């Protein structure tokens, strides 16, 4: 750069040869690797964001599902157990009726237990991260990710900060994300002196670690998508429905099943009463 901020350019458009220091092969390699790592960091931060978003979305979907559907299935199973009981009482010697009743009772108990943790009131709010929050999280992941650590000590710090960042993201806490970012940027990691060879080795290690993490993220996302709630969520998205609408439809269906089961139970009770 020439004084006054202008670049000196020769007639054929090349930068003055006298001003350019030829890079050593090591320096060139270092630059290539730095470039490669920068690209991978970009990808990593995006994928970490994808994973954190999916995790939080599925968690909130699951909360909602259990609030809307949990007690309904528990109620349905309780009525079915009562029906099985009526059948057994009107036919006490039938081993099939006994097996049925045992099975229905166990199912009712299990459903009540699962549903019990989720009261039917107060449907939780769905996780909907604003763009600003997503951007902040990506920044944090890019700078703070433990797989970009230089040594064990640094890795420990980054691991702690990244865990805090995940929590802050799920809670929609932008201020805390910003604080995490500032906190890390103020850390002395970058200023340590070292040879090109040291730097190169460290870069190569970082690249390998980031690649491993990218693979692990893909696996985690696939595992999340394969869960029942992941499949329900995907179904809603594919058909352009909201999860709320899908659950509303499902709730209506189970309500009809409950009504049908109640009717069946009432009929059985009436029938036994006439004897």
């Amino acid at each position, binding site marked *: 750069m020439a004084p006054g901020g202008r670049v000196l350019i020769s007639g054929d458009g090349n930068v003055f040869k006298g001003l350019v220091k030829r890079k050593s092969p090591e320096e060139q390699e270092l630059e290539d690797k730095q470039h490669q790592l920068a690209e991978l960091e970009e990808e990593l931060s995006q994928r970490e964001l994808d994973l954190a978003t999916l*995790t939080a979305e*599925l*968690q909130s979907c*699951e909360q909602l*599902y*259990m609030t809307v*559907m*949990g007690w309904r*299935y528990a109620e349905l199973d309780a009525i079915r157990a009562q029906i099985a009981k009526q059948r057994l009482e009107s036919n006490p010697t039938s081993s099939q009726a006994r097996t049925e009743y045992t099975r229905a009772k166990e199912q009712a108990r*299990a*459903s009540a237990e*699962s*549903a019990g*943790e*989720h009261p039917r009131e107060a449907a939780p709010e769905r996780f909907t991260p604003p763009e600003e929050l997503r951007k902040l999280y990506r920044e944090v992941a890019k700078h703070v990710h*433990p797989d970009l650590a230089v040594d064990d000590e640094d890795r420990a710090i980054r*691991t*702690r900060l*990244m*865990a805090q960042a*995940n*929590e802050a993201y799920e809670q929609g806490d932008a201020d805390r994300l910003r604080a995490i970012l500032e906190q890390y940027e103020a850390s002395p990691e970058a200023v340590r002196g070292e040879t090109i060879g040291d730097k190169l080795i460290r870069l190569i290690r970082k690249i390998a670690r980031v690649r491993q993490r990218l693979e*692990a993220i893909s*696996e*985690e996302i696939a*595992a*999340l998508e*394969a*869960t*029942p*709630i992941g*499949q*329900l969520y995907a*179904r809603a998205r594919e*058909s352009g429905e909201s999860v709320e609408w*899908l*659950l509303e*439809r*499902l709730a209506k*269906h*189970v309500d009809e099943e409950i009504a049908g089961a109640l009717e069946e139970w009432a009929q059985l009770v009436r029938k036994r009463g006439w004897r």
Partner: protein
Amino acid sequence: MSEEKRLTPRPVQGITTGNDLIQRGLEAVQRLSGRQVLSRVKDILPPPFEWVEIPGGKVTLKPGGYLKDYTTFEVKPFVIAKYPITNAQFARFVEAGGYHQKQWWTECGWRTKEEGWGWVITDTDDDVIYEPTGRPWTRPRFWQYSDWNQPEYPVVGVSWYEAMAFCNWLSSKVGTRITLPTEQQWQRAAQGDDGREYPWGNEPPSPQLCNVAKWAGRTTPVTRYPAGASPYGVMDMSGNVWEWCLTGWKTGTTDPEGDELRVLRGGSWVSDHDNTRCAGRVRGYPGYRYDSGGFRVCASAAS
């Protein structure tokens, strides 16, 4: 949450609680949307059309063809049409150009149709032989005869190939696979769980229950015999028209390609009582077009 736990791959179980209840909901949603898709058939075909849900269970078939002995099969839940396909319903396929669109036909089916296989009286004697006539089929046999072509009467004069082409066309219109029932599915829909002789029970056929033994002298509307419905409410399973099944007679194949003989079930307006039992099985060349042969459609319950 501990730091380690938060950053190492999280166990899926840790993410979701109440997995069983969610799995149930997922299955219910899958069934519901399957039903929604299947109900589109009613927008495409004129009434009467209903799907009947048949629960999974066992069915025992008589020996014959690929079955050397009585054999019990486990059938998964499925849905089947309440009535045989009517003339008015089959007309939608004819009007849509189905006889000219190769994509709905199997290879053998298309060739047989193009060659116009049919019964021909030989010059030398009065023998009737089945051979190519050179006149491609463009509609069911008997399509123009008022004895057979009334809107709510079952379509007759359709080969197995035409029945399959209709299924393929309908599948594409609806967006899910609709096909002929296998003979196991057919018998389960007719018989239910108690091994009954006839769809309505064990009493012999009567003119209030079904159209057999030439009592009516022809086919009858598919809604005429509610008293003869199967335990699931499927109608006309005994008599009126023989119904093509997907199943091949010799090997039991359900692959639609090839020219293997296919199973027919249920007997027709001509049949004696034996052939009209739930368990009665006969076979037919897939290119034959009987005046007593029609079909009904079915689909997987989870489609």
